[in-house]
Each structure stands twice: as C-alpha cells, then as structure tokens.
C-alpha cells in the first residue's frame, strides 16, 4: 500500500511516480470501461465480478509455469480461467437446475479460494500477495523499466497491449457485438453467432481483469468494469456515445483518484472506486435524461401546470354561474388543494396575466378566459363522449374528465366535437364553450 503522503503534487522528486501511477490507472480504467459497457448492457455485470475473482488461479498457475508476469502466459491463464468460469457456470446451471447467479456464485468463490490456497502454497515463488490481489497495489508501478529514455512502470507492458487488444477487438467486432447485445435472436437469424460473441467478450473481460487486478485489485476491477458504463448509460442513449462517455469517466476517475489518493495517503484503488461511485450517484441524480432530479423537476412542472389549469377552469365555472361574483384568493388556493404548489401556481398565473387580483378577489383576464374556455370545453366534450359512446352513468364522468382535460390536444378535441351534434350540451346540461 501507499506509504508516501505527497504534500506538493508538483514536487519534482515525486512527480514521475505520481505520473506513472496515473498513467497506469488511466490505461486500466480505459480497458475496463470499454469492455464493461457491453457487460452492463447485457445485464451480465456480475460476470465481471465473477471473472475478476476467478482469474486468480489461472494467473497463479500461469505464473508458476512461466515464472514471469509477461503477457503471453497471462493471456493463456486468463483465457483458460475465463472459459472455465463461463463453462462451469453453464454446466451447473444446466445440470444442477441452479439459477445462473447461484451457479456463478459457487464457481467464482470456489475458484478464488483455489487461487488463494495456491498462492499460500507456492507464495514464496510467486511475488503476489493475496491481500494485494484483493485490494490492489499501485505501488507495484514503482518497479520500472527504461524504454528509450522514458522511465515507465513495468506493468505498462501488460496494460498497454491489453488496452490495444480491447480497442482492436471492439472496433473490428463493433457491429457484431452491438447486434448480439441488443437483439441476439436477430443476430442468430442473420448468421452472427451469439455464443461466439459471448465467449469473445468473456475472454476480453478475463484478460482485462488479469491486466488490471494487480494494479487496482479484483474488487476494484469490478468497480471500473461496471460503474463508469452504468453512469454513462444514465446519461446517453446511443451505444457509441455510451462507450466514449464511460471511457471518459474511467479516465477522469483514474486521474482524480490518483491525485486525491496520493495527496491524502489513501489507497488509490479504493479512492478510485469511491470516486466512481460518487460519479455514478451524481449521474443518477443529475442526469438530464433519466436523472432523479430531472424527473422530480419534470413532475413538479407538470403538477404546477395542472394546478394552474385547475384554477383557470374553476374561475371560469364561477363566472359562468354568476358573472359578478369574485372568489377570494385564499378560497381559490384552498379549492385546488392548497400548499406551496397552489400558491406558486397562482402567483405564476397573475404574473403571466391570466388572472388579475383586487380587493374583492380573483378575476380572469381575456386571455385567461380563452384558455379556461378551452379547458372547460375539453372537460365537457370528454364527459359527453364517455356518456354517449361508452355509456357511463352521468355521475361517473366528472372525475375522469377532470384528469384527462390537461392532456388532450387540439386534434383530439376536434375529433370529439365532430362526434357530437351541433350545439350539443354536456351530460349535466351545461353549454360546451367554443
């Protein structure tokens, strides 16, 4: 784990180290975000969790045989572990009649346990530590190599090729991945094998997990696989943009997470996971399309509009009953349900010039009256329709009409009017305004 608290981030002594950590974090996060997007969209997020644990025995075995952490044995170990996980899960699901999640849970925990035991048994030969595997240790990047005058972290030899492989495969198989992700039946129909794509993706995830988890730890591989794409999914609708945005979020998390962690002497992977979670929370709340805030705002707008319209329609009816009668502001607010929304709605109406106020109470202006007439017209047309066409009893139609009057447009209003004879009245015997 980190031992250095760096007070001045630009200190020339520590700057190269900070930069190296940052470069590694960004590379790893980019890989994760890229393949993670497809995992999230396929609702297989937890397969990422499973694979990032399950690659451990594959990695240990690969290391035992080759004695190094270079790309080729790691690739083989990752692929084997990935395929084994997927295959075992399927087998258990098929033969054991276990649900997929239970099967997955059994497989990856067992494989991980196997990996830990192997590590303990042969730990002296493998320079891996179980806790490091779990929590990740960016300190590893202090082990450096020199490539053409640049001092680079040794792990970059793994992380960079994996990122390139991921980019390449995703770019080449973009269309296939897209189709199998969104409509695997269509994919099969036009001759793209969904299982092949499935295994390809699983292999990529396993590979990414192997490349990453020495750096960020296996649980935090899960964070980087799932969280940036999930956050991106909340903000955009198109696959291409989602992948780009999640890569962007991943990179941002890498940069910021490193800076914060180094400054305050925290675990960099842990910091990155928390940061990513916070970004997700922000996206969930403030996303312009599906965010909770946007939705709450939309809901408030709608209910405010409905209350405004209710006030107008009420004033219209009062006028209709007795032209000289004015209604007091407090009574009007009370009649539409009271509370902040009602007061706010009335203020808006006055400001927009639909309603005027004097000592006697509230009055419709001409424009307010015209708008109210349209509402009352919609209301009464709908009542007439419900009684004439659907045969509802007269005393049952006010409530549905009261709800629907806010949502019917001009076109539907005219269609309703055409069904009625000229000069017809509503079921309560009141005139339908023009």
């Amino acid at each position, binding site marked *: 784990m980190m031992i250095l608290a760096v007070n001045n981030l630009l200190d020339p002594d520590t700057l190269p180290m900070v930069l190296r950590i940052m470069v590694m974090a960004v590379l790893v996060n980019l890989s994760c975000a890229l393949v993670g997007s497809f995992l999230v969209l396929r*609702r297989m997020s937890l397969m990422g969790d499973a694979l990032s644990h399950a690659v451990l025995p594959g990695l240990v075995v690969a290391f035992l045989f080759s004695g190094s952490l270079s790309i080729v044995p790691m690739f083989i170990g990752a692929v084997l572990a990935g395929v084994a996980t997927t295959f075992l899960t399927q087998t258990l699901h098929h033969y054991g*009649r276990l649900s997929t*999640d239970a099967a997955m849970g059994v497989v990856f*925990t067992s494989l991980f346990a196997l990996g830990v035991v192997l590590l303990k048994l042969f730990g002296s030969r493998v320079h891996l530590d179980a806790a490091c595997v779990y929590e990740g240790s960016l300190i590893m990047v202090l082990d450096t190599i020199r490539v053409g005058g640049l001092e680079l972290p040794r792990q970059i030899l793994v992380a960079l090729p994996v990122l390139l492989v991921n980019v390449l495969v995703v770019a080449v198989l973009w269309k296939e991945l897209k189709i199998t992700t969104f409509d695997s039946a269509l994919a099969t129909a036009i001759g793209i094998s969904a299982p092949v794509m499935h295994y390809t993706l699983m292999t990529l995830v396993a590979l990414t997990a192997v490349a990453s988890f020495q750096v960020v730890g296996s649980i935090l591989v899960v*964070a980087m696989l799932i969280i940036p794409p999930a956050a991106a*999914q909340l903000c955009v609708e198109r696959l291409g943009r989602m992948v780009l945005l999640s890569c962007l979020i991943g990179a941002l998390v890498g940069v910021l997470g490193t800076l914060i962690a180094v400054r305050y002497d925290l*675990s960099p992977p842990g910091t990155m996971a928390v940061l990513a979670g916070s970004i997700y929370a922000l996206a969930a709340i403030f996303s312009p399309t599906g965010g*909770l805030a946007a939705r709450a705002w939309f809901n408030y707008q709608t209910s405010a509009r409905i209350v405004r319209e209710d006030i107008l329609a009420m004033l219209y009816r009062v006028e209709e009953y007795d032209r000289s009668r004015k209604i007091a502001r407090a009574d009007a607010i009370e009649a539409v349900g009271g509370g902040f929304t009602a007061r706010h709605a009335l203020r808006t109406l006055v400001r927009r010039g639909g309603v005027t106020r004097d000592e006697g109470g509230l009055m419709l202006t001409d424009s307010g009256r015209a708008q109210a007439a349209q509402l009352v017209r919609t209301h009464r047309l709908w009542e007439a329709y419900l009684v004439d066409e659907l045969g509802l009893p007269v005393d049952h139609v006010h409530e549905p009409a009261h709800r629907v009057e806010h949502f019917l447009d001009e076109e539907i209003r005219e269609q309703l009017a055409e069904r009625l004879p000229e000069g017809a009245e509503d079921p309560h015997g009141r005139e339908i305004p023009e």
Partner: protein
Amino acid sequence: MLGASLLGAAAGFVGTFAVLRRRALVGDMLSHASLPGIAAAYMLWQTRDLLTLSVGALVAGLLGVGCVAIIARWTRTSEDAALGIVLSTFFGLGVVLLTVLQANPEGDKAGLDSFLFGEIASLRSRDLWVIITMAGGLLVFVLAMYKELQLLSFDSGFAAAQGWPTFWLDFIVLGAVAVVTVIGLPICGVILMAAMLITPAAAARFWTNRLGALLAISSVVGALAGIIGCLLAAPGVVEHIGLGKTAADTPVGLPPGPLIVLAGGGLLLLSMLVAPQRGLVARILSHRRLQRKVARDHLLRAIYELSPAPEADRPWIDFERLGRYGDWQGATLTAQTARTQREGLIELRGSQLRFTPRGFEQASHLVRAHRLWEMYVVEGWDRSPDDVHHDADALEHLLPPEVVQHLEQALRAEGRLPAEAAGDVPRSPHVIDPQQTIEETPE
C-alpha cells in the same frame, strides 16, 4: 472448528432461501459492503470485539441493500449492475478507511485485515456463544415462519396474491442473511462468506426437491465444509499430504476460509456426481440403460420383421441380412446380439440367430406397440403412412403397457383393428421390405 461448522450450518440454512429467491449474489454484495461498517465501527469504538464490529457491518450491509433497492427501483440501471456498483463502491470505501486506520499509529489494524481472508484463530469463546445464539435464533425463526417462507420461496406471486407482505418477508430473509454474513466475516473473510451462503444450498439442491430436506442437507453440507476446511487448515496437514515439500521451509498454515470454501466446492462436485436422480453418474447410467433398451428393442423388432411368418416357426436369420436390414456395423451387431443372448431372448447358431420363445413373446409385444402407435398416428394425426415409422420409433420404447392397451381398445372400438385375439400383432400400416434397411423410407 465447532464455530466453523456451526457457522457453515447456519449459512447453509439461510443461504437456501437466498438461493431459492434468486438472490444468491446478495450475500456477496453484503459481505463486501459491510467492510466500511467494520472499519468505521473500529474507528469509533477502538475495539475488536466481534459483536461491536458486527453491528457496524450490519448497518453498512443493510445500507448497501437499501442502495441497491433504490438504484434498481428509481434509475435505468439494472439490478445486477446496481449490485456491482454498491459492492465495489462500499468495498472501495472500506479499503480507503483501512488505509486511514493504518496511517494512524495507534490503530492496531492487523485484526481488521483478517476480515478480508478470515482468521479462525481469532475466534474466542464469547464469539462462539454469539454464533450459537444466532444459529438457534435462526432455527426458531425459520420454524415459526416455515409455511410463509416456503410459499415465498416457491411462488412469491401467489404469496402476494394471498395478501402476504412479501416485501417485508423478503426483507426479513435478507436481514437473516445479513446477520449470518457479518457474524461469519471474521472466520471466512469478506470474500468467501458469499460461498458459504451459496455453495451448501446449491449442493443440497442435487439431493432433494423438498424444502425441509433441502434446509437440513444444506446445513449438514455447510457444517461438513466447516469441519473439513478446519482440518485441512491445521498446521502440519499440508506437509502430511505431501504438498508442503514444494512450499517454503517453514510449515505453512493455510488460511481456513478458502479451505472451507474449497471443501464446500468439493462437496458440491461430489453431490453433482453421485446424487441419486440429479447426479451426473445417475444420469449417465439411466441414459445408458435407456440406450441399451432402445438398441435391444430395435434388434428384436428387426428379427421379427425379417421373419416371414414369425408366429409359426421362429426361423433362423443370417447375421449379414440382419446387419443390412438394420444398417448396423458388424461390431455393434455382435455386441448387441451377445448382450441379448445373455438375457435369454435369442439363440445363436453359427452365423445365424433366432428368437427363444421368450424373446419371441417380447418381440411381438414390441412390434404390437410399434404398429398400434403407427396406426394411431396415421389416423389420429392424419399423417401419411410413409412418415409414421420414425414417429413410432421415437415413442414406442417409452409407451407404458396401459397406453398400448388403451390404444388397442380405441382402435378396436372403431372397428379398424381386425378381429383378432388380444395379443396378436396387427399388420403394419406401411410396407415392410426385408430387402431394405429400416432407416430408408420405403417409396
């Protein structure tokens, strides 16, 4: 070891419900999400007391469950992604808190690190009582709510329709899972607690379909896994098995957590192989039995069809002709006839064979079922006589005697079966040409 086995039993017990409710990975989520709770509780109270830390873990775990519920309910994110997000964010927070603790010179973090991988040695007698109390409490709870939980597990829609508070029942089950999880953390570690919940239940699923038995077996498997895992973890065992030679010079004590999980996985594998009915071995055997029966049936029928007037004289038939008719390879035919001869259904003479009386009787039953079924398919399903052979072929081995009898009565009642004595073999609705093989459809 007592603690581990008790814990295994308890985990297997509640895990059954989690697995049945398709919430298997919630245990995984819970155990990861409770890490920040443990770290925070330690920071606040500066104690390593199991109970205190467990309270922190429980609070954090339930907070995590709440977050998953909110994300899945209110955003576009699917539930699996929600689980992953909460799991990793909470765990990340836990790791960050641990590094903070580590930086604090007064903090003795060593004990907390063991939450990751588990430290059975950290179990004290008071902790044991906590586990015993919890296991007993769970048992009482499940017995009291048995009917409700059973219905919830197998048909939650029906339970809801009956007006039961499925939401709260679910919540209670999750609460039970959470309690077991946090108690088990110091023993199994964060990572492998999930396995303790899932694996025993998954193994038990191979043995039975009944909830009561499932709970019992699952508990037993959990307890066994605990015992075996602890035995393996005892120092010296590794050397004893001979694996130790490859390791370092000092004796290695393996962590019990992973070993318990591996023991559980082994038990699962064993269940998968040997369980009656569901087990792989049982399945292969029954499949093989069926295959042999089908092959024997085919042989008997071929001999019957090759005999011009089988009722009369049980004629001798050449191997070679039989092989051509059935399109069988020489070796297959030899093996099959040898087996059938051992069963006393045919007798061999040089390169010829014929029925024994018993074999003839069985063959006529078979052919009878085959032809009745063919007739039924031709008439009932309006299929051409040329097509029916294969349909009949697929089903005749599985037709129980009652169905054959029923078919016969139905056909006889419609007057389509010639008035023969019961037990006679009706004529085939399609041409049987002894010169052709069965597999070719006669033109």
